[in-house]
Each structure stands twice: as C-alpha cells, then as structure tokens.
C-alpha cells in the first residue's frame, strides 16, 4: 500500500516535449513508473521516450486511460494545463511548475475544490513511492522502501533527509513534496491524514518552514487525531524577518508563521522536533 499513487497509477505528463518534461519523463520511466502518455498542444502524434504525445488531455485519457497528471508546463500556460486536466476528469494533478502568479493559484485552487480534483503543488517536487513509482522530480536514487512517510514543503532539504534516512536503513513508504508556495493545493493535514490511514506507514517525518500556518494546523491535527509518531523539522528558525506584508499581513497572521511558534505547537502536540535537520535520523532511531 501507499498513499495517493501506486505501481498501477497511469501517469500523464503535461508538457512532455519541453526540456524539463522530457528529462524527467526519462527519469520516471527508469524507475518503472507507469507513464502512459504525454500532452503538448500542437505536438500531438510525436513520441517521447516511446510514449505517445497528444494534443490535449481528453484525447490522451481516451486513448490511454491516464488517471494522474504531472505538469511540467511553463508558468504562463501551467494554470491552463491544470484546468484542462481537472475538466477532463483527472482527480490527482501534480504541478511541478514554479513561478505561477499567486492570484491564478487562488482561483484554480478554489475551482479544483469545487469540482473535486486534488492538486499537489504548484512548485513542488511531486510524489515518490519507493519500489512503485516516481511522479515528479524526487531523485529515486536516494530512496529506500520502508515504513516512514515523508511530507515536505521544500525539495532539496527533503532529499537530504531522505538520503540520510535511507543511509541508516530507515526506508520510506511514500514521499510527498507539497511545495512551499503561499498557496498550496494540498496541505500537511491532508497528507498526515492519509499517512495515519496507511497500513504501510508507521512513522511520519514532516519538514516545514517559516511562513504560513500549515504547520500549526498540522500540529492541531496531530494532537487530536494522530496515533502514529511524527518527527519534524522547521527550517528558518534563524532567518531574519522577511519583507513584511504591510500591517495587513501582520494583522491577518496575528503573529503566526514564525519557526518558534510552529515548533512550540508541534512539540505541544507530541511531535519530536529536531533542532538541526541532521538530528532527524537519530531521533527516529532512538524511538525505535
């Protein structure tokens, strides 16, 4: 078992003919991910890494039965790609693209909630299930099959932690990069809930950051609903306060969003929070 995706997931790559799309399609295929098709409007009929390219998502689904889409489309067209996937009935959309204007993200997030499609990202590394599939850009070379669920806002930090876990024999059940943008399609709480219900996960690693209140909401969820142990790290404890969003930002966030506040909330929920991310492995090993 795993969460969100698995070995049989039929993956569609939107933007497959672009530089990034093409490269990572190759990477995903090397990990035996079940990629069935790609889409680039105007490039239908071509083939990439032996997979057929279609002009639009609807015809790709008709021809191949794709049920999850991963998006490598440049920011100016990425939102349209998300709408297209959602309107064509794709229920899980993973958007790797970075740099989408935030207002469009708010709109598309609202729309997807209405029609019941889940978005991961944007600006995220995707999902990887060790031994089953890699959908996105998480380097599969560093993963190991196991029982630890990993959910992270950041990419490289996540890889570094996963690498360390694997090096110490602490394999992973599913790794989910939810992205660090202000507007996220899927939040920590969503993923924690899935891990809580996943028979293959017995421990969760949560990698958060300063900004936003997703970690606070995660702490509240963990406190009230989670039975599995959670180990966390919050990046940015020593970061200087960033550009303030005028008075409004301070008033709205009401003082939330600092690393300290997040660490306290998580600790209060029984989460063991690492001071330094290299401690995560030690904490988990101690708890075993």
């Amino acid at each position, binding site marked *: 078992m795993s969460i969100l995706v698995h070995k049989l997931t039929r993956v569609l790559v939107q933007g497959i003919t672009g530089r990034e799309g093409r490269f990572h399609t190759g990477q995903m295929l090397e990990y035996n991910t079940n990629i069935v098709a790609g889409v680039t409007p105007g490039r239908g009929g071509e083939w990439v890494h032996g997979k057929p390219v279609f002009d639009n998502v609807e015809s790709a689904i008709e021809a191949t039965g794709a049920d999850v889409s991963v998006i490598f489309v440049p920011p100016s067209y990425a939102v349209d790609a998300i709408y297209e996937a959602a309107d064509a009935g794709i229920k899980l959309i993973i958007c790797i693209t970075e740099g989408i204007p935030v207002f469009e993200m708010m709109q598309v997030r609202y729309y997807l909630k209405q029609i019941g499609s889940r978005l991961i990202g944007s600006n995220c590394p995707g999902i990887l299930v060790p031994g089953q599939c890699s959908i996105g*850009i998480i380097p599969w070379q560093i993963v190991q099959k196991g029982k630890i669920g990993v959910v992270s806002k950041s990419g490289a930090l996540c890889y570094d932690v996963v690498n360390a876990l694997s090096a110490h024999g602490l394999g992973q059940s599913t790794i989910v990069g939810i992205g660090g943008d202000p507007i996220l399609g899927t939040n920590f709480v969503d993923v924690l809930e899935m891990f809580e219900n996943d028979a293959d996960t017995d421990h969760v690693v949560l990698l958060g950051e300063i900004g936003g209140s997703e970690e606070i909401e995660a702490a509240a969820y963990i406190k009230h609903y989670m039975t599995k142990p959670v180990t966390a790290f919050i990046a940015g404890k020593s970061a200087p306060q960033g550009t303030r969003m005028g008075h409004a930002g301070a008033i709205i966030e009401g003082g939330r969003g600092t690393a300290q506040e997040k660490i306290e909330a998580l600790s209060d929920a029984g989460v063991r929070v690492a001071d330094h991310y290299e401690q995560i492995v030690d904490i988990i090993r101690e708890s075993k």
Partner: protein
Amino acid sequence: MRLHEYQSKQRLAEFGVPVPHGEIAHTPKEAFYIANRQGGHVFIKAQVLAGERARSEGIKQAHTPEEAEYYTSVMLKNNIQGLPIHKVLVETTVNIAEELYIAIVNDRSSGQPVLVATATGGMHVEESAFADPDQVIKAYINPIIGLRSYQVMRIASELNLPRDLWRKFDTLVQAIYRCYVQSDATLVEINPLAITKTQQFMALDAKLIIDDNALFRHADLAAMRDTSTEDETMIRARNAKLSYIRLDGNIGCLVNGAGLAMATMDAIHFYGGKPANFLDIGGGAIAEKIQTATEIILSEPSVAVLLVNIFGGMTRCDEVAQGIITAYRNLKSAVPLIVRLQGTKSNEACEMLNQANLLRICTMNTLSQAVIQAIHEVQNVDFSS
C-alpha cells in the same frame, strides 16, 4: 516588488481611487516651486521603501514654500533604515474629519484575498489591532466571483460609517479591488484612508506590493522598480535570478533550495556561528549561475569563509563544482572553502574540486562537520586579524 507611495497612489488613481494632489521633487528647489504652486501648505514625504517613515522624520508638514524647501534639503541628506532618500513627494494637505485603515491582502491559510479594515487608521493600527482584535473587520473574497458589494456594505456598517457614505465607500473599495486584481498585487494598503471635511474619501498613504511571478505581464509596473537604492551586487543577484539576502555574520552560504538554505543557516546558528547571507541558487542551476553566486558571496568584504551545502537532485554537483572553481580562479580568492556535496554526480564534483588546486579547500560528508569546520576557520581568521 514593492512600489513607492507615489507610484502606489498613481496606480490606485488610475482605477478611480481619490488621492491628494502631489508631485515628486528631487531637489529642495523643486520642492519649493511645487509647494509654492500648491499654496505653501504641503506634506513633504520621503519616498523610500521602508515602513514607519513618520517615526523616522520621513514625513513633515510645511506651511510655506521655504519650509518645504528646508525639510526637503534635510530629508535628502538623511536615510531611513539604512536606505538613502533620493526623492520626496510634495503633497497638498487635506482637511481630515476621520481616518480609517483598509487593505486587501492574500490570505495563505484560506487561499483567498481578504479585505481588512479598522475604524481607526494611522501608524498605530497594528498595535491597536493586536490589543483589540474585535475591531479588525475582515471579509474573505471569493477569488473567482470577486468582491461583492454586499460585503463592502457590511464592512461600511461594521465601521459605523455614516449611512449616506455607504454607496460611495462601495465604489471606492471596488476600485481598490480592481487595482489589486489587475495589478496582480499581493497587498494593497491604504493607511490612513481619510474622510475629508467635505465627506470625500481620500487615500493619504498607500502601499502596493506586486507579485514578482506576475511581473512578466505588467511591463508598466516592472518599469517602476527603483534600483537607485540597490547596490551592484543586489542587482547582479536579481538579474541572475538568485535569491540573495545579506545578513550580519561572516560565514558565506551557497545552497540549493530555499528550505535547505534556511536549514543551513539554522545549523550555523546551532553550532554558534553567524551566516553572512542567505543564498538559494534554485533548482537545476548550471555552472555559470553557480559562478555568479560564488562571485557575489566572495565579493562581500564580511565573508571570512564560504560554506557550500548542496544536495544534488535536479542540481548536478559537477556543475556546482565547475562554477565554484571558475569563480575562485577569476577572483583569485583566498577565502577558505568548505564544501559538502551529496547526490547527483557528487563523486565527480569532489574529484574536480580536489584537482583544482584551490588555496584552502575542505570537503565534508555531513553538514554538521562542514559547519563546525567553517566556524573553526572563522575563529582562525578572527585570531589572525
């Protein structure tokens, strides 16, 4: 990207938001003439991208053109929060009956824009909002439907605005919302929003922050960027699409990914050191970009050691090594280099670095080792200097 007050007002005025008459002066003499044309009673307002200007002598009321000239001359020699003042806004004074606060800002947790207002504007708005959260009035905006008039009327009611001003308030707030949407703003703030003695609304101060990701479709707004207070290094970093922030320590950091970069800074603090900067080279950076990043860090006089922490996923470690080596050779730099590389092509990279004959280089397997070594180097430098 943040706009100056005068730019924000200009933009808001295009959407129909009333603002006081004002002109920009770059010299005290200009300020004199502008004040003279406006009858002498003006505010002189430093145009600088810092908050709390009133508390920092950045806003002065003049009653004669001579006073305007004097305040301008003082201000242009001054700076606020380290930022030099290159121009001032000379603005007609307005007869104010009441001052409100109003803003539209992106709310992360609901994923919607939110309209925020309080009945008492001015520079103490934040303190009074924290002291009495009930007085902060909010309306969440459906990003697809937009701001509805009934929401604005409701706010007018909760602000206890005079009833005959409600429709006018709606017209004003709709204009602010249009400005927010059509500028791809992440914040529009008007503080204070005045009600004049003649019962008109007027934006006395205004702040717009534009979504950097959307600047590509707003050439007019992008052109408003004020680079006059940025030094060459900052401009170079921005042009190279490097996320670079100067800090007050002495350990230069070169990292991939914002999260890992912050975590690296945290580790430096954890072991008792102080980072000289935050620098995220982004994902998949190639040698040239790494070279620029390295040169930027090495060019800072405060940097006593360079700590590189890279976990190669999309980023290839050999590209990183190549960039660093070229930069060190270019600058003939003697700054000690502590490198921790993991992931894609890290073995090749270490090999390259070892063969590059840089002056003082140290490769480490873990970040902790690297940080401890960097702190050690800094202490050596401190002792020797």
